[in-house]
């Protein structure tokens, strides 16, 4: 049986490195690119045009038309053979209509797959909402887990959740993928779901603590036993969900890609942190000499 609690330095170091890399990615992006994450128009406001041209077009052709509008920094990407994604400043209805008409005439007739214009105030609102969502969800979880277990367990579970969320967001920051509203949903889902495995282990610790046969064992040993006993279900529950995430990632199409990638990284980190982070934290805390 692997002594998970005893070897905790290894796990804590590994997680520490991953978190450090994530935070470095935020800081690097903030300095080199101006933003910690590649925030999309949902957050910053702006225009997103997703067009399907009748023929294959090049980015240069599209840029030539856009240049006439003096829009400053526009991002033009191909998202398929005939599909082009344009991100730029917020355009009002008239300018957007004219731009689309121009593109149709000067490049090739195009069908609008998507055309979004978000004002900057809406973006600010969203950022505030997203932060509130994180705070409220954290509070909800900490209250519920404290109520069902103990405050220590709740703190350990929440630390593990932040670990998962930071690593998932860090990976997205490293890959510099555009994040919009679905990213917020992904982070909250990671927080809501990754805790499940942690709770399964906690539930077993709670049960084992009551067992007379284990009464003489040290707390850390009971934690080890509990982790070991629940290992198969910890892995299998995440595995079935990750199967679905992988299907979404590879088959779900472009709109869901960043969302599923975030989930994939977050859930994987979550499976790891339930076993190697949350439970050892409880063991260390509970086993500290102050306890009577």
């Amino acid at each position, binding site marked *: 049986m692997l002594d998970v609690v005893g070897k905790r330095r290894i796990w804590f170091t590994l997680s520490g490195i991953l978190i450090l890399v994530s935070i470095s990615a935020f800081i690097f992006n903030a300095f080199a690119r101006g933003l910690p994450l590649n925030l999309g128009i949902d957050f910053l406001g702006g225009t997103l045009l997703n067009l399907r041209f009748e023929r294959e077009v090049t980015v240069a052709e599209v840029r030539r038309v856009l240049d006439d509008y003096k829009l400053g920094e526009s991002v033009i990407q191909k998202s398929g053979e005939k599909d082009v994604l344009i991100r730029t400043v917020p355009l*009002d*209805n008239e300018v957007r209509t004219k731009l689309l008409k121009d593109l149709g005439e000067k490049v090739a007739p195009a*069908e609008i*797959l*998507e*055309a*979004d*214009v*978000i*004002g900057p*105030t*809406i973006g600010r609102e969203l950022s505030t*909402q*997203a932060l509130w*969502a994180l705070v*409220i*969800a954290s509070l*909800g*979880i900490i209250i*519920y*887990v404290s109520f*069902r277990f103990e405050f220590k367990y709740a703190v350990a579970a929440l630390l593990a959740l932040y670990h998962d969320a930071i690593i998932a967001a860090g990976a997205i920051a490293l890959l510099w993928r555009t994040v919009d*509203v*679905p990213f917020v*949903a992904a982070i*909250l*889902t990671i*927080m*809501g*779901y990754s*805790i*499940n*495995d942690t*709770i*399964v282990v*906690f*539930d*077993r610790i709670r*049960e084992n603590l009551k067992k007379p046969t284990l009464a003489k064992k040290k707390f850390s040993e009971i934690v080890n036993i509990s982790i070991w*006993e*629940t290992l*198969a*279900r910890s892995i*299998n*529950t995440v*595995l*079935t*969900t990750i*199967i*679905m*995430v*992988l*299907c*979404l990632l590879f*088959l*779900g*199409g472009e*709109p*869901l890609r960043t*969302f599923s990638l975030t989930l994939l990284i977050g859930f994987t980190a979550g499976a790891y942190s339930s076993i190697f982070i949350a439970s050892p934290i409880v063991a260390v805390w509970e086993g500290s000499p102050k306890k009577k």
Partner: protein
Amino acid sequence: MSKNINQLRLLAILAVIGVSVYLLVKMPITLGLDLQGGTRLVYEGQETEKVKVTEDAMAGVVAVIRNRIDALGVTEPTIQRKGKNQVIVELPGIKDPERAIKIIGDTALLEFVEAEWSPGDARTISEEKLKEFYGPEARLETFKEEKEGRERAIILKKTVLMGADLKGAWPGLDQYGNPVVDIEFNSKGAQIFSEVTSRSVGKPIAILLDKRIISAPNVREPIPSGKAQISGNFSVEEVQDLVIKLKAGALPIPVKLVETRIVGPSLGKDSIDRSKVAGIIGFALVAAFMILYYRLPGFLADIALAIYVPLVLAILSLLHATLTLPGIAGFLLSIGMAVDANVIIFERLKEELRSGKTVKASFDASFERAFSAILDSNVTTVIAAVTLFFVGTGTIRGFAITLSVGIAASMFTALTLTHMMMNMLVDGKLVTKPDSKLLYK
């Protein structure tokens, strides 16, 4: 006896399937704008010097927008207030979003202003002098006559009538066959109009739309009938749009378009097709995993999962939830999460069987003991999902709803349905020994 119980259980399971499928056929789920294509607009009420953004003003904005959209003939639009000063408008499947945007968001404040062509030197006149000669509200504007292309200085003296004084507006043609808007004032308006035209013979009456002069015809004779024409070099479509706006009335406060989301029909279709494939393959892989790992109980969990799919969709349609793309993602995700409860139970079952209990006792114990872990872990996921629902907007709410419904339904299918089916195995004497090959080694 046990046979009867099994028949009852089978009946219960079939009833769940039957009701779900019936509901789905009867009331198909409405697709969100991102899936069926359509336009979502968010307007923000703007405070002016004269009018504050009040509850009444916003209610008025919603009413006027609703009238305009109804006149556009959009099927099943949704118009709702959000926060203090926002209105969300959702128009499924409209073909010409640009036109809708133009019609909905214009204030359409129509004003009839007593005016006078300014004498040659008026351009240099001071504001004080202007007010002294022409009344306290007088102001100087230039009006560009479209036909002749010349600019004339005009003194706007006093607003005498507004859009609210209209009885009706219709598209029409003037004597040269140009598109115009025919209007008729209500009785009070007609009286005022009659008085104004009587004292303005030879002078112009300026017609302003959203503070912009669209025409300034000279009054030739008093008009007692309360009928008039608004001409302004309009196209036929512009006339139609103006009629819609005039009939619906002016917005009590100006609004600003702060969010536009237009989704063409192809994108949604692409997404639906792709998620179907992803869903079917994912379901098959999860189902295969459960059978390979947990054998007969795994197979039962798969049956429960197969019931779970229509059950969740049926609940969603009962709740009148709209299915969005993130909603579909949440649903597919929940398929992977739905078997979690069964995984926890089956792992527990292994332990119980190893401890030497009978099959029946092990089955019951595994469900009973696994319950607390399943409940606690699901509640935390629901906490996150509910937070998303209240904080999030638009399509993300769809995700929060499907995820929450999915979790609740999975508790039911995994705990109740699988339990029932496992008891059927015992009572039907299919599995009698703890070391049965149908379970696990």
